[in-house]
């Protein structure tokens, strides 16, 4: 217990106490500790494939007849997270890998691995983690092409719901923005925020397809629908506008928004 008789004494006593409780920091030591940590980090086994991916885009002429652009993603795979693409280009081709298979891959690029056998026409990404290799297919699915358990679909693990949206991408999708019913569909700027980037195109295409089956959505008409895409439910909300378009304000996996509570006393 501190015995003080004046404010000055109290201040002084508290200062002494605080010095006791919080000794002066040795900034030099802290800095060197940080450096040590950084060094350890650099030498520790990494699950990151590459730290300093360069962004570059390249376009190649498409060889297929489809109007859809195929995208090549180069990014970092982190265990437990989704893929963060940092490169996009227009490309059609089978598999990209080392050995000069792809002009998009620089020499010595640690994420560029050897070509592997995947029975699909388009592979958007290949990368490896600790002896396993992964590919993002053009339908948004994530395939483990080589690893301890052999080839398997890893999409549910990485993307959850998004994985199963793969199937419709192989269907005949409507042209960009337009439902086959003739009504232009506009997806709001943040309308696809609940889905990983890699499947947004697929989801929006499925929504446009569904809207096409409904016929014209009149101006001022609001609508919400839960559709099944690749075995999973997706709910979207649309609104007819006076210019004849349909605005899709939001879409999300499942039938319910889970971050709101059921109102009390309802019903």
């Amino acid at each position, binding site marked *: 217990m501190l015995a003080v008789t004046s404010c000055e004494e109290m201040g002084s006593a508290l200062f002494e106490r605080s010095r006791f409780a919080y000794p002066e920091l040795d900034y030099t030591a802290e800095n060197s500790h940080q450096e040590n940590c950084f060094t350890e980090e650099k030498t520790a086994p990494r699950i990151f494939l590459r730290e300093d991916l360069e962004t570059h885009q390249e376009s190649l002429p498409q060889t297929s007849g489809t109007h859809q652009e195929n995208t090549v993603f180069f990014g970092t795979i982190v265990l437990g997270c989704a893929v963060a693409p940092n490169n996009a280009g227009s490309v059609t081709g089978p598999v990209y890998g080392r050995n000069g298979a792809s002009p998009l891959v620089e020499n010595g690029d640690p994420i560029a691995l050897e070509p592997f056998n995947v029975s699909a026409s388009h592979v958007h990404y290949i990368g490896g983690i600790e002896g396993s290799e992964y590919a993002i297919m053009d339908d948004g699915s994530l395939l483990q092409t080589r690893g301890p358990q052999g080839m398997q679909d890893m999409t549910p693990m990485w993307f959850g719901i998004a994985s199963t949206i793969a199937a419709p991408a192989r269907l005949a999708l409507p042209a960009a923005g337009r439902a086959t019913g003739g009504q232009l569909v506009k997806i709001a700027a*943040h309308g696809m925020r609940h889905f990983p980037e890699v499947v947004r195109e697929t989801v929006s295409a499925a929504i446009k397809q569904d809207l096409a089956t409904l016929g014209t959505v009149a101006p001022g008409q609001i609508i919400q629908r*839960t559709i099944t895409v690749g075995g999973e439910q997706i709910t979207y909300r649309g609104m007819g506008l006076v210019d004849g378009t349909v605005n899709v*304000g939001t879409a999300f996996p499942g*039938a319910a928004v889970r971050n709101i509570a059921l109102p009390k006393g309802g019903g």
Partner: protein
Amino acid sequence: MDLLTAAKAFSSNPSNVEALTTFMEKLGECMSINELKSILDIDLENVAGPALGRLTDLAPTDLEALLSAAIWSYHYGLDAEAQTYLAKAKAVGPLELNVLQVEIYISYSFGPEYVHALCESALKSFPNDDWLSTTKQSIEKTGELTEMRGPPIHLAWQKAK
């Protein structure tokens, strides 16, 4: 620059931070309900939402504004905000048909049983309402809720482009 001009400038270039700032400034300064209503149909996504928010600040008992803000928020996935606006609307007119209809519409996420119960409750007050009957019957038909068309409420902002 007046609010209308600022709203049009922002609508034509929504990624322009200066246009956004000017619009939000003018919106905050605006004290005229009529002026706010005049910009609702300029742009659904960028202008109508903030304008409806301001409108409900200035006219907290305007049922149409509250329901419009609820529907706008819901449409863009802001469900919690939508429920807040709905609660305010229910405080103003708890037994208004429009309020009950909007409540049912934005309760879609709570599942068929909940929505069905709301329909039954609303039908006691408005037994001849087609929208309520149709919605209730569609749930009874399958026991599921996979689609719901909005109630026939034609609000001013729904003319937005």
